[in-house]
């Protein structure tokens, strides 16, 4: 056994080079000034102070809001779907889960462009509305378009963990609850849902994290004025060239995400999920 331990070494080197080192660099950029060259750097908290300006705080809050909305909709759509899938025969389940993941085989960018041609003012959806006798509606460059794009993109991340938990559930517990006189809703609320909470939390965490750092979908479906934290970071790196500020925002975002994951874990271990372990 002892020799096998040494096989860890390559992975340690790997993660040092490709995970730790970039993180250190980002941190270094965040707390210094002097542009992109590391030659004449000076230590400063300026970049973090800049983030406290109301305009950037509002960008941050807007991203959080969008993340929450997307997560709620994904949960609302994803849970019933996962539940229904888990009720099917096993062979059918495999096919249905395959259908859920098929969109993920296609590049996000392509799917987003497909949404554009559907939602455009003269796009498919509007043509359909016109044909049915309704007037045209504006979809592109609105909240609706952005949320729709995000939900469509992230829904699998909600369904799959919930489905996994639901299929692995111990059915004798459900039967026991029924034997003891619980009605349909009580069985669902007190047994099934409670036991699926770990999956729900996994799904919520994943969708939320991906939603608050999204930038391509909001930019394409919401226009460049739909400015989120991800767009701010992209802008600082690619257009403005202020890597110091960009790094500072990235660090703040990373810290916020860390905090949220910890909160989720706490909920998980306090709640029903704790019973399992």
């Amino acid at each position, binding site marked *: 056994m002892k*020799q096998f331990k*040494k*096989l860890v*070494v*390559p992975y340690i*080197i790997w993660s040092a080079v490709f995970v730790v080192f970039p993180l250190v660099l980002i941190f270094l950029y965040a707390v210094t000034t002097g542009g*992109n060259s590391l030659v004449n750097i000076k230590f400063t908290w300026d970049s973090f102070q800049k983030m406290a300006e109301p*305009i*950037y705080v*509002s*960008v941050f809050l807007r991203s959080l809001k969008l993340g929450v909305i997307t997560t709620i909709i994904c949960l609302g759509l994803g849970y019933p779907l996962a539940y229904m899938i888990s009720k099917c025969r096993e062979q059918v389940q495999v096919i249905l889960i395959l259908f859920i993941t098929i969109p993920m085989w296609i590049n996000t960018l392509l799917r987003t462009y497909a949404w*554009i041609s559907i939602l*455009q*003012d*003269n796009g498919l959806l509007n043509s359909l509305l016109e044909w049915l006798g309704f007037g045209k509606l504006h979809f*592109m*460059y609105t909240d609706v378009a952005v949320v729709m794009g995000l939900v469509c993109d992230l829904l699998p991340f909600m369904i799959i963990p919930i489905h996994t938990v639901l299929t692995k559930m111990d059915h004798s517990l459900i039967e026991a609850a029924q034997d003891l006189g619980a009605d349909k809703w009580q069985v669902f609320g007190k047994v099934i849902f409670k036991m699926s909470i770990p999956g729900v939390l996994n799904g919520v965490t994943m969708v939320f994290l991906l939603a608050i750092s999204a930038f391509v979908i909001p930019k*394409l479906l919401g*226009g*460049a*004025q739909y*400015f989120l934290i991800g*767009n*701010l970071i992209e*802008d*600082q*790196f*690619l*257009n*403005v*060239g*202020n890597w110091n500020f960009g790094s500072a925002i990235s660090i703040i975002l990373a810290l916020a995400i860390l905090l949220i994951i910890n909160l989720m874990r706490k909920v998980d271990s306090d709640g029903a999920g704790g019973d399992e372990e």
Partner: protein
Amino acid sequence: MKRKWIGAAVLIMLCTGVLLGAAGCGGKDKPTLRIFNSGEYIEKSLLTKFEKKYDCKIVYETYDSNESMYTKLVSGSEYDILVPSDYMIERLIKEDYLQKIDWDKISNKDALIPALMDKEYEQGEKYSAYSVPYFWGSVGILYDTEVVDEEDLEQGWEILRNKKYAGNIYMYDSERDALMIALKSLGYSMNTENKEELDEAYEWLEKQRNTMDPVYVGDDVIDNMISGNKAMAVVYSGDGALIIADNDKLDFFEPKQGTNLWYDGIVITKYCEETELAHKFLNFLLEEDNALLNDEEIGYSSSVQSVFETMRDENYKGIDAYVPRTDYEKDEVFRYQKPDIKSYCADLWTKVKAQ
């Protein structure tokens, strides 16, 4: 002992990985040109044609703005050929990223429009010392003739703040062009280094954003305007010509307060080792057939005299967006900005978008 052995094994594995990777990239038998161009800014078939003709390989990448191209260059990416705009050419010259063009190697140089060859960014300093003119044009407003009143055009850039058209406007998502519109509208130079004037421009844009609900777009403006989604859009003249050719309800005008006259050139970077081949490529693009094919795809005003005339009199007959305004005293060319002014402007534009 054993630890050392494993350590050595890991080291060897990593090294061979690196070496193999390096060999994989470096293993070339054909000369290679690395071209970094703005998106949708060349007829792609010309690249394959050039590769075949000169038995070479072209590595082609695109960027979405001069700024992002510059950032990539500064962060260490090496290219042989770039296609920057006027102010960026000036910046790259001043920061020593370019090599001079050897005009003796470009036999088609007489085909170029003389005025473009003589364009100066400073007294006695010509762009053409370091760049071959590619396309040129202006910035103006593309409008739907069925929705926009001819009379309102008199307002120039202020039409973009005319509440009649609220929610019906595309702005171009470009820091310098957005500020240019505001500065020109306020009667200032678009190359101002006065922060108070820039602050006023910021307020102009902020107010526009709050009252007009504009959508900031990039190249997607082309599809959107062809479909006639909104009444007005700020566009480059060449995009205007291209769009009008597909949607004749639209027309283009250059506001009276003056606009940005731009010039894009092809430059060779100092990293380029295949200078012979690079010059051949520049010469190749100026050949009449190729330049015409290219312009039919791009739609901007060509730097090749004969192509410009053909397009003006045949392909784009009656579309005045193809013929940018010249010799108007209020029009300007973008100049290089000092780093502090540059980052000041970048911050202002970020703030407008982040509202």
